[in-house]
């Protein structure tokens, strides 16, 4: 089986490490990107069908060699040594900052607001240097009231700006729930389409290292029901930058979930411009025996478990779902149809989390393809303890993932 890479008319591009194809390992395309001059790449899938995308996405898929390491420190593998463009290495928070800066350069309507985002550069340094470059008004330090500055961002968006609203920690956005649910999610609909709200709401969430219960929340559980918003979670510098750019360009309100512990991940990303599709899942490791669905930090726990599983003779397929609302049921469905077993690994709590919704969606849509019940590993329904040992056990660990896979594959 080989994949065919076609180039659009008039487009000439040299192969980068990310373009090279290892046809023996290719099962399905993974990363997506949009080059700045809209070159289109059409990849024929392994079964000969072309995938089509919704009207809102102009991205094309590219094939990618398998990355065996859970945390990519070097994207160069043997298959990509034919590269001529090296890309540049940076940390995840720098990738977010780069994406944000590029979009602010590209469109003067993009602005940032939040607490300490200006000269302080943001609590996690995602907005570092932006206030110096774009000024105090475009990178706005606000007083402490999440509901107010989220509401402010919504009002500014309705008048033509494209605000990027930063919550210092996702948990604080609980205070902004009223504005997010009632105004952000609803006003495009209730105004009959007269007003659009192209905001991006972003911030770090998830369980960190002993940050305490109030600072370790998984807001994606609470927000997933709000109609009118989109939710994405980034997990690597590559998709962080791509999702940030795509979210800013989207006409819908998008909530971008980052993770407190992933900001210092290092990866080499392309020099040329790209964005990631907001509604697409990412194939991390193709496999045959079981589909493991995960997102954000749990992706790394899963990949660590995958190493152990491979040694034990299993072949797990790992998908980073990335798009939390709506789910990419196309990619997920194809995987389920192939492996017939699903394990969901998430950081959300057992009750009402992303995993709970995903379990329901898979059972509803792909029931006939399942050989075993969908299993979901989540955190317990407890506030995150401060004690380090207790905190570690509220989060799903690789050993539990290995056990679960063994159980499902019996």
């Amino acid at each position, binding site marked *: 089986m080989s994949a065919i890479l076609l180039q659009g008319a008039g487009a000439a591009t040299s192969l980068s490490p990310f373009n090279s194809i290892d046809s023996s390992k290719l099962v399905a395309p993974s990363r997506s990107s949009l080059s700045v001059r809209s070159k289109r790449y059409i990849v024929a899938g392994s079964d000969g069908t072309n995938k089509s995308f919704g009207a809102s996405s102009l991205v094309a898929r590219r094939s990618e060699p398998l990355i065996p390491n859970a945390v990519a420190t070097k994207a160069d593998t043997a298959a990509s040594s034919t590269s001529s463009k090296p890309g540049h290495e940076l940390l995840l928070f720098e990738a977010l900052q780069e994406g944000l800066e590029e979009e602010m350069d590209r469109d003067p309507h993009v602005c940032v607001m939040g607490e300490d985002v200006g000269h302080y550069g943001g609590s996690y340094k995602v907005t570092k240097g932006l206030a110096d470059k774009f000024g105090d008004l475009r990178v706005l330090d606000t007083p402490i009231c999440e509901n107010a500055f989220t509401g402010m961002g919504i009002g500014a968006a309705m*008048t033509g*700006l494209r605000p990027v609203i930063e919550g210092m920690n996702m948990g604080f956005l609980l205070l902004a729930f009223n504005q997010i649910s009632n*105004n952000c999610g609803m006003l495009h609909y209730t105004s*009959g389409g007269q007003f659009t709200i192209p905001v991006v709401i972003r911030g770090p969430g998830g369980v960190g290292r002993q940050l305490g219960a109030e600072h370790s929340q998984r807001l994606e559980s609470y927000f997933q029901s709000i109609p009118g918003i989109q939710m994405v979670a980034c997990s690597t510098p590559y998709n962080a930058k791509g999702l940030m750019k795509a979210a800013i360009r989207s006409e819908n309100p998008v909530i971008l979930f980052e993770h407190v512990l992933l900001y210092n991940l290092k990866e080499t990303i392309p020099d040329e411009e790209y964005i990631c599709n907001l509604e697409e899942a990412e194939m991390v490791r193709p496999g045959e025996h079981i589909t493991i669905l995960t997102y954000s930090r749990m992706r790394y726990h899963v990949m660590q478990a995958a190493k152990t599983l491979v040694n034990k003779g299993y072949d797990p397929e790992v998908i980073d779902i990335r798009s939390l609302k709506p789910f990419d049921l196309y990619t997920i469905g194809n995987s389920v149809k192939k492996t017939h077993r699903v394990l969901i690994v998430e950081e959300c709590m057992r009750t009402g989390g992303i995993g709970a919704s995903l379990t329901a969606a898979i059972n509803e849509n792909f029931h006939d393809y399942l050989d075993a019940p969908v299993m979901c590993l989540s955190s317990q329904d407890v506030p995150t303890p401060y004690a380090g040992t207790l905190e570690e056990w509220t989060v799903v660990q690789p050993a539990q993932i290995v056990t679960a896979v063994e159980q499902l594959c019996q």
Partner: protein
Amino acid sequence: MALHLRSSFSSKSTLLNILRHNLGFGSRSHVTRHIRQILPHDPPLRGSQNPISRLCNTMAEPETLSSFVQHEYANNHQVMDFPGGKVAFTPEIQFISESDKERVPCYRVLDDNGQLITNSQFVQVSEEVAVKIYSDMVTLQIMDNIFYEAQRQGRLSFYATAIGEEAINIASAAALTPQDVIFPQYREPGVLLWRGFTLQEFANQCFGNKSDYGKGRQMPVHYGSNKLNYFTVSATIATQLPNAVGAAYSLKMDKKDACAVTYFGDGGTSEGDFHAALNFAAVMEAPVLFICRNNGWAISTPTSDQFRSDGVVVKGRAYGIRSIRVDGNDALAMYSAVHTAREMAIREQRPILIEALTYRVGHHSTSDDSTRYRSAGEIEWWNKARNPLSRFRTWIESNGWWSDKTESDLRSRIKKEMLEALRVAEKTEKPNLQNMFSDVYDVPPSNLREQELLVRQTINSHPQDYPSDVPL
């Protein structure tokens, strides 16, 4: 100074002496006299380095004592830097009173009988503008009455009137320009009316038919018009205030000659969003007008149960915002205040708070019967004796701009137009089912497309359970 000394004393009775003397007298010089008085009665403190023992030791040399004390006294008048700036110290323990003796006066220009008050300051209006203000007030009144009756007759599902607040609605709108962006609560349809929203368009939204710009998705009175810069009403109280600050911020970035204007009631000032928005607007130096319709009632809650401050106008100062209290039933005063405030807001890039005192003559909405919590006599008095329309009418008639004939002509014309608008809106088709799923996002995602299919399938199999007046 006394407070500093107090911490050094070991004797409790001495402490009380100081307190008693201090609180009884206001002058600083008394404090110094006081120190000289009590020290001779105290035994010198043993072996301590505190200032009192120093004073005791120097008792024998009165000059030194007095110079020491005067040096301390001089120190008191210095100001000290804290984060936030210099602040003078005071040795007196004085609390700022919770209210001034006098309430903030209310700006009005026409008296209760519509006569211009002598020496009043106001912004001159042309005959054309004054006549339009009055005509639109009449139109709003008639529209409200007819829609209210339509709801009572079962033709409309819901309505909320602005009766009694016509002057606030129309006169404030008249003082703005079409580029000023409006963030209403839900009792300001007059602003839309002024800007050119037709009676038919109002009726279409109330009936939720396919000509409604909101595509039938909201309750009646939740108007919105992007071409008239009037942002769709969101029912949640006071959430529009931070939105308005954001719009003002956007206008400030673009350096536009326009401001954001937002309306809310007395009840809305209790919401957190009110306080946060005022604070933000002051810090951002955003050109936004906060117009509070203090109409005395939040459904059944009177203002005495809503806040304990002197109304809303005094809250502006707490946030560093220039504020004014206006007679909301005096159209000329409203016009002048909003006109002036708008200029200040844009020229000086600052927020302004306007508290318009008025009375909610109508019920909160058609779901409310306000005679349950207030007397019908009170409502009637405000409707007749303090009616904003009659006051302004007297004034424009005195200028020769209006007459009984023009009044009756206008009223009969508007009533006819209203009834026709109602008739047409009632007959117009409702939006089709596809509008239930569109505009949730820019493009419907797969889950919504799937859900629409499911709904249509269900309707196909049970057509008798589906309302006949909603097209597919």
